[in-house]
């Protein structure tokens, strides 16, 4: 035992002499996480991160068998789910985990918003988080097409058509994404490249930055906690106390994920037929539904502007404003308290919920 311990210490010294890791370990040892009635929200980002890691692992396994071409895509996914050992589980976990990740990201984002965690000095943490959410939606949009089934094919057609309505850059962007005028095998290859190479590269960089910011600046304390005298604040060490709690929650989420994958295996549907007419009930993924439903409800023309264009530009501007919240929220605040951003946040959630439910009901 003593010999093994000496070997471990020797290895640590070897690494420390070269990379000076002691300050890093000291930082981790001293890092504290506040404990209060909103602590639960601290875990949401961690859950999303865990699900992202599940995505990476399951995605790598899927890539071993997936064939990114028009003739092979559907059959290869079917092969994965029917012939490959535990392929059904990997694919189902990948699909469910993607959806759970989006859900937890939304929870993470709104909890950050309502606790005002985006305020100075965490403006860039919020901005990188927002871009990460946008990239995750990009993951979802591009990944949806990859099984090359009927619903995905037509939903991508509709989705890219909507993208084409963006003023000025819409049409070239649509052609660029589709790899031509229509959704074809070329689109599939592009979406595959975007899904497994381009977005992951951007995502990894931004995620690193986001986590670095979080570690460097520590956890945000809600205003009522920050005002408390130091001796009345309750804190726990990040390592290992908080991390163990994180792990416990990850295990719970893993169990839920396995339950969903086993009892509700993700369906494959019918293979896409480019010459068939669009089936009824084409819907985007649930997290795009509120935008889809809004665009459906807009009239053909509002004054002299096309309804769809107005909707897309509106969503674009709202997204931009949401990303820049840390820079304008203070302006709406009264005496350091800001009721208006809360109203806006609640209105946003209500709007998303109503439109999503409406979209599924009609």
């Amino acid at each position: 035992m003593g010999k093994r311990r000496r070997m471990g210490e020797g290895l640590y010294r070897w690494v420390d002499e070269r990379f000076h890791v002691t300050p890093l370990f000291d930082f981790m040892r001293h890092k504290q996480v506040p404990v209060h009635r909103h602590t639960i929200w601290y875990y949401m980002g961690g859950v999303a991160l865990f699900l992202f890691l599940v995505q990476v692992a399951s995605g790598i396994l899927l890539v071993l068998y997936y064939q990114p071409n028009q003739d092979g895509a559907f059959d290869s996914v079917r092969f994965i789910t029917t012939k490959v050992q535990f392929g059904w589980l990997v694919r189902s976990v990948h699909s469910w985990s993607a959806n759970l990740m989006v859900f937890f990201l939304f929870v993470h984002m709104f909890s950050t918003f309502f606790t005002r965690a985006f305020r100075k000095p965490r403006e860039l943490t919020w901005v990188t988080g927002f871009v990460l959410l946008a990239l995750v939606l990009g993951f979802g949009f591009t990944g949806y097409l990859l099984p090359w089934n009927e619903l995905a094919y037509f939903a991508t057609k509709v989705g890219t058509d909507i993208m084409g309505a963006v003023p000025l850059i819409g049409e070239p962007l649509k052609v660029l994404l589709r790899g031509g005028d229509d959704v074809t095998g070329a689109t599939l290859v592009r979406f595959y490249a975007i899904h497994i190479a381009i977005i992951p590269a951007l995502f990894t960089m931004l995620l690193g930055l986001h986590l670095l910011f979080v570690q460097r600046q520590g956890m945000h304390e809600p205003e009522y906690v920050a005002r408390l005298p130091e001796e009345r604040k309750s804190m726990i060490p990040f390592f290992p106390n908080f991390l163990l709690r994180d792990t416990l929650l990850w295990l719970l989420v893993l169990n839920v994920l396995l339950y969903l994958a086993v009892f509700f295996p993700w369906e494959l549907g019918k293979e896409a037929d480019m010459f068939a007419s669009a089936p009824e009930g084409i819907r985007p993924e649930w997290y795009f539904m509120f935008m889809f439903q809004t665009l459906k409800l807009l009239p053909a023309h509002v004054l002299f502007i096309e309804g769809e264009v107005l909707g897309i530009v509106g969503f674009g501007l709202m997204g931009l404003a949401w990303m820049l919240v840390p820079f304008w929220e203070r302006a709406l605040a009264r005496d350091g308290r800001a009721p208006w951003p809360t109203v806006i946040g609640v209105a946003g959630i209500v709007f998303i919920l109503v439109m999503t439910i409406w979209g599924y009901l009609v």
Partner: protein
Amino acid sequence: MRPRLRGVVVACAAMAAGAAWAAMVGAQDVTTTADEERKRFLAEDQCYVCHQEEDMLPEGFDDGDVHVQHGLSCAGCHGGDPASDDEDVAMSKAKGFVGVPGKRQIAEFCGRCHSSIDFMRSYQPRIPTDQVAQYNTSRHGQKLREGDTNVADCTSCHTSHAIHPASDARSTVYPLHVPTTCNHCHGDAKRMAGYGIPTNQYDKYVGSVHGTALLENQDTGAPACNDCHGNHGAMPPGLTSISQVCGTCHVNNLQYFSATRMAEAFEEEGFHGCEECHGNHAIAHANDDMVGTSGDAVCLDCHEEGDDGWESAAAIREQLRTLTTTYDEAIAKQGEVQRKGMDDVDIEYLLKDAHQSLIQARTLVHTFDPEKVAVKIDEGLAKAKEAVTEADAAVEEFYFRRRGFGLATIFITVLIVALAFKIRQMGRG
């Protein structure tokens, strides 16, 4: 507004208005329909104008008639001068007026055009022109020549003045309408009284496998009366031709049957080939119970216990029963796989193969040779059994997944509990 600018605006507005007007005129030209052309053509035809004014258009006249559509008016068939509004001139013999043809003249009357390929090819290059020749050989034509004016002529089936191509759904000879058209006469007991033929063919046909396919399922590929009896050369199929008639669609059945000893025996005995076992107008969907040595088996009509045919029938029936039983078991198992939400694509393929073999085995029944039937039965059995095995494996996989999930949950729960204790312990510390 500055004068120069105002001028430019006015000029632009004038150009836009001019372009719009030109576009409207062009659009009107394009929208001139064939319907309007026909109306214009009829309005210039004095036969039509007078007969319409006097309310003397022939019964059932339809200006959508194929002849009118192609610019052939009354005079095209009846002669006369359609340009004259003077009745005496328009309907004078000097102008070639022939009036209404008699029953015996109708075939030749229509044949003046329809038997001339030189004339008909200008309308349809591939149109047949042997209708009159065929009609003359038909039972209808023969009877007419014998002086029987009760029989069908061209107009009985095609009408006189509302004629449409057989491919037109409005036509009386459109496949879906043929049974009703024939039944108009053949279902009339009074009209058929002197011929000694039944009048319930239509009722039988409606309930038959062919009638159901055509009239209920609207499958225009299913046989109507004319597909077996012919149309212009309509005849009841004779002894020698009955199998050929069925064989035009049921090719393999005929081929297998013709090569058997039974075909020769049928001919010697004067039996009606296919009809002997399957019937004619009321022909039912063939089923496995028709073969064998018990119940409704048609083999019992001729064979007795102990003869070769009896043995073959029993053997074939048993073969079919074995395959259908295994196939049905596989279908039931596939249902269970589907209900459990498991993938059944491969099972579906195997079942399709098994079903194909079953169909081929049923067709091979017409060889009356158990060894030949056995080839397809064995193929089908192998596929059906494979489907059963696959289905069992899928069901087992279903439970394996649940057991796996249970074990994983136990493992994860143990980890969670251990972690919870550790966290609690650290909290106390």
